[in-house]
C-alpha cells in the first residue's frame, strides 16, 4: 500500500524529467514536416549546442505564445570545401559524428584528440581505416594516446567552432587545406617553435611547399599531401565517339593541333551530346535535352575556375585594400560562362543537380567526358567500375596551370598538449598508410612511387597514367587559388556566390557581374582589420 502511494509521484517525476529533456532537446514531432503552419518552429543546427546563446533568442518569441521548444536538427549544408559534393546537398551516408576512444594506449600516455572532417576523411569507407591507424599508432609508442573524432564535412565547421568556444577543442585537426584553415583564422598554433623543440628538420622540405603551408606568414603544419589538378576523362565516351584520348604530357599535340583551350573546347563540344545523338557542334543540338557533357569544372569556387587561366590575386599586393580582378581571370569567367550557356559543354546548376549527373557526383554518373579535378577526387567515384584515365590540362595563352591543393595536419592553439601533438603530427605527415587513406601525393618525392603503386591497386583493370599527376605538379597556380585574401571568409563567400551565379543564370552580362564582384571585394578588403 505504501509502495502504491509512492509509485505515482515516482512515475510523475520520471515523466517530468523526460518532458524536461524533450523541452531542452526538441519536440520530435514538431520538425517532422516542412509545413509553415501548425508545426512548431524549427530552429538551427545540432552543432551549436555549446553556443546556443544567439540561437535560443530566436525561440523566445515562440516561448511566449506556445510551449514549443528550441529544436535542433542536423543541417546538411552545401559547402565548397574540398569535399566533392560541394555543388549539392548530398544525402549523408555516414553518421554525423563518429568518435572512437584511443585503443591500445600505454598507461600514463597523453590523451590527444584528432579531429577529422574539415577536409577529406569523413567517408564511410575511410573511417575504419583511420580508426585502425590510430589504434596501431597507439600501440607503437607510449607517449601519446590518439582518439579520433570524425565529423561529416557539412557539419564539421560548426562542430569545431562549438568545441573551441566551449574550451574543449581537439588537439590535431586534419587533413585540412588552406580553405578549411581560413575558416578558423588565428586558431592554429605556430609549428616552428614546436619543430625546433622536437628537433624536427623542416629544411628537408621544398621551401615552396613550406611557404604553401603558411597562413599569413605563420607555419601551421608540415606539408603532408599534395593534390594537383588534372583532367579525369571517361575513356568509354571517347571510344563511343571514336575520338583519341587527350594528351598525357605537356607539349603533346591532339590530332595534329596544339593541346590548347581552343582544341579542348572543340573536343568537348564533340563530346557533348543531346538526347537525339547530336553533338554540340550540330545546328540541331538541343541544349534543353543534353544527355552527355564534354566537360565539368570540378567542385571549386570561381577563384578556382579563374586560376585555370593563370594564377593571380584579386588585389594589387602593393595595395591589398583595393580589389582588382586580373584580366586573365575575366577571360576565365567569360570562357566558363560561355561553356555553360553558349557552347553547352558544361552543365548548368540544374543539370549538375539532376539524376543525369547523379545529383552532383558528375564524373561517377558516366555522363561527363572530362572533368578538371584534383587527385583527391579519386575518393569520390567508382575507380573500378568506370573506364577512365587522366590527362594533362590544356594550355591557355601558351601557359599550363594546374591548380594545387595541399593538406596538412594542424594543431589548435587551444591545445594543452602541443608538444606531444607535434610529435604525433610529425609521424602522421610521413605515414604511408595515411597517404593511401587520403589519396594525396606525398609531399616527400621519395614516397610518391609507393603511393601510386598502392593507389593503382584500387583502380581494378584500369591502368592509370599517374605520371600526369607528377607532370601537373610542375605547373601549380601561383599565387594559389586558396591563398590569403583580406577578410578571407567573406571574400571566399563572394567567390562562391559568383560561381553559383554563373551556373544558375542565363543571359548575364558577365563583365558587368565581374565589376560587381570587384566592387564587393573592394568593400570587403577595405573593411578588413
Amino acid at each position: 500500500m505504501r509502495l502504491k502511494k509512492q509509485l505515482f509521484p515516482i512515475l510523475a517525476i520520471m515523466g517530468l524529467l523526460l518532458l524536461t529533456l524533450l523541452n531542452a532537446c526538441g519536440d520530435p514531432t514538431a520538425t517532422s514536416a516542412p509545413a509553415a503552419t501548425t508545426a512548431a518552429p524549427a530552429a538551427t543546427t545540432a552543432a551549436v549546442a555549446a553556443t546556443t546563446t544567439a540561437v535560443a533568442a530566436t525561440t523566445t518569441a515562440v516561448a511566449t505564445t506556445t510551449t514549443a521548444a528550441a529544436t535542433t536538427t542536423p543541417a546538411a549544408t552545401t559547402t565548397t570545401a574540398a569535399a566533392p559534393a560541394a555543388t549539392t546537398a548530398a544525402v549523408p551516408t555516414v553518421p554525423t559524428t563518429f568518435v572512437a576512444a584511443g585503443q591500445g594506449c600505454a598507461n600514463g600516455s597523453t590523451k590527444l584528440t584528432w579531429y577529422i572532417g574539415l577536409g577529406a576523411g569523413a567517408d564511410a569507407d575511410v573511417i575504419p581505416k583511420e580508426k585502425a591507424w590510430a589504434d596501431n599508432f597507439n600501440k607503437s609508442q607510449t607517449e601519446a594516446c590518439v582518439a579520433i573524432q570524425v565529423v561529416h564535412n557539412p557539419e564539421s565547421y560548426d562542430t569545431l567552432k562549438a568545441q573551441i568556444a566551449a574550451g574543449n577543442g581537439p588537439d590535431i585537426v586534419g587533413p585540412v587545406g588552406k580553405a578549411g584553415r581560413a575558416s578558423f583564422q588565428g586558431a592554429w598554433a605556430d609549428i616552428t617553435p614546436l619543430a625546433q623543440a622536437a628537433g624536427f628538420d623542416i629544411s628537408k622540405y621544398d621551401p615552396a611547399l613550406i611557404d604553401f603551408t603558411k597562413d599569413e606568414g605563420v607555419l601551421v603544419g608540415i606539408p603532408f599531401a599534395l593534390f594537383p589538378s588534372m583532367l579525369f576523362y571517361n575513356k568509354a565516351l571517347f571510344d563511343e565517339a571514336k575520338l583519341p584520348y587527350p594528351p598525357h604530357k605537356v607539349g603533346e599535340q591532339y590530332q595534329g593541333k596544339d593541346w590548347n583551350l581552343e582544341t579542348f573546347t572543340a573536343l568537348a563540344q564533340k563530346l557533348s551530346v543531346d538526347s537525339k545523338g547530336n553533338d554540340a557542334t550540330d545546328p540541331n543540338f538541343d541544349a534543353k535535352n543534353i544527355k552527355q557533357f564534354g566537360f565539368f569544372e570540378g567542385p571549386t569556387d570561381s577563384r578556382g575556375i579563374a586560376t585555370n587561366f593563370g594564377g593571380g590575386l584579386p588585389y594589387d599586393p602593393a595595395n591589398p585594400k583595393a580589389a582588382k580582378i586580373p584580366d586573365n581571370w575575366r577571360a576565365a569567367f567569360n570562357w566558363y560562362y560561355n561553356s555553360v550557356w553558349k557552347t553547352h559543354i558544361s552543365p548548368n546548376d540544374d543539370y549538375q543537380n539532376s539524376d543525369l549527373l547523379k545529383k552532383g557526383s558528375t564524373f561517377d554518373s558516366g555522363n561527363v567526358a572530362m572533368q578538371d579535378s584534383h587527385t583527391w577526387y579519386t575518393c569520390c567515384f567508382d575507380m573500378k567500375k568506370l573506364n577512365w584515365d587522366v590527362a594533362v590540362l590544356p594550355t591557355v595563352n601558351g601557359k599550363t596551370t594546374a591548380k594545387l591543393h595541399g593538406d596538412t595536419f594542424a594543431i589548435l592553439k587551444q591545445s594543452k598538449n602541443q608538444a606531444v601533438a607535434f610529435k604525433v603530427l610529425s609521424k602522421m605527415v610521413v605515414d604511408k598508410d595515411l597517404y593511401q587513406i587520403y589519396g594525396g601525393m606525398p609531399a616527400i618525392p621519395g614516397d610518391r612511387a609507393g603511393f601510386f603503386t598502392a593507389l593503382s591497386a584500387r583502380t581494378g583493370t584500369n591502368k592509370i597514367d599517374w605520371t600526369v599527376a607528377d607532370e601537373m605538379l610542375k605547373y601549380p597556380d601561383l599565387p594559389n587559388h586558396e591563398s590569403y585574401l583580406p577578410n578571407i571568409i567573406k571574400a571566399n563567400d563572394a567567390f562562391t556566390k559568383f560561381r553559383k551565379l554563373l551556373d544558375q543564370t542565363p543571359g548575364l552580362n558577365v563583365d558587368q557581374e565581374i565589376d560587381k564582384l570587384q566592387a564587393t571585394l573592394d568593400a570587403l578588403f577595405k573593411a578588413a582589420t
Partner: protein
Amino acid sequence: MAVDAVKTKPAGRGLMGRQRLRWGLFFLAPWFIGFFAFQLLPIVFTFFLSFTDYNATKEFAPENFNFVGLNNYGRLFSDPELGNSLGVTLKFTLIAVPLGLIVPLMFALLVNSKHLFAPNVFRTLFFLPTVIPVVAGVLVFQGVLNPQSGWIDLLLKVFGIEGPRWLSDPTWAIPALNLLGLWGVGNAMLIYLGALQSVPTEIYEASVLDGANGIQRFINITIPMISPVIFYNVTLGVITSFQYFVAALLIGGRNGDPQGATLFYNLHFYRQAFVFNDMGYASVLALFLFAIVMVLTTFMFTFLQRGIYYASSDI
C-alpha cells in the same frame, strides 16, 4: 453570548498546504531547471554578446569578449543583406500563411465530408508526409523540383508547358519552398478536422431549416465556429515563417541561392554567426527577430482576436 469566531488558518497555510506546495514546486523544478539552463541563460548571454565582438573561433571566455558598445546595433542600419533577408522572409510569409490556412482547411473539409469514400485512407495519406524528417523531405523535393529530371517539370512537359527552373530562378525559389511547405499540411489538416467535428450539428440543422445553402453555412457557421483554431494556425504560421531555416539552408545553401532569393532572415543570422563567426552582430540579429515576432504576435492578439468567436463566455 458571543460566539468566538473560530480563527481558521488561511487556505494552504497548514501543514498539508505547505506539503502540497513543496510537492508542486518539486514537480515543476525540472521544467524550471530546463528553462533556466537552456532558454533563459542563453538569452541573457545573447544580450551580453550583442555588446561585444566575440568571434566564434575563440574560446567562450572573458578574455575573448571585447566590449564595443552599440556598434553592433548600429550595423543593423548599414547591413546590405538585412533588407533583402527581411524581404525574402516577408514574401514567403505572405504566401505561406494564407496557403497554410486555406489548403489544410480544404483538405479537412474534404476528409470531413460524408460523401468521401474511405476518409480514413485519405486522412492517413494527407498526414503521412508530416512524419518524414525535414531533411529527407527537402532532399526528395530537390529531386522532384529539378527542371531536368524532376517529375513536376516532366509532367508539365507532357502538356507542352516549359516548367520553371524552380530552384535556380530567383522568381520561383520562394514559390518552390511554399510548394514544399504544402507537402506537410497534414498536421494542420488534423487540427482543422478536429475543429470541424466539434461544431455542433444542431446549428447546421437549424440553418438548413432556415434555407441556408452550403456556402452560406460555411461562411456564417463553420468559419466563425472554427475561428479560434484559424487564429491559432495563423499565429503559429507567422511565427514559424519568420523562423524558417532548415529547408532554406538545404535548398539554397549558405548563400541563400539563387542570388539571395532564399536568404531568409534566420539564414542571414546563421551566416553571421556560423559562417562569418561574428557572434556579436548575430546576437543583435537574434534579438531583432525576437522584437519583430513579439510585435507581430502582440498585433495579432490585440487586433485579430476581435474577430474571433469564442464559445466559452470566459474569453
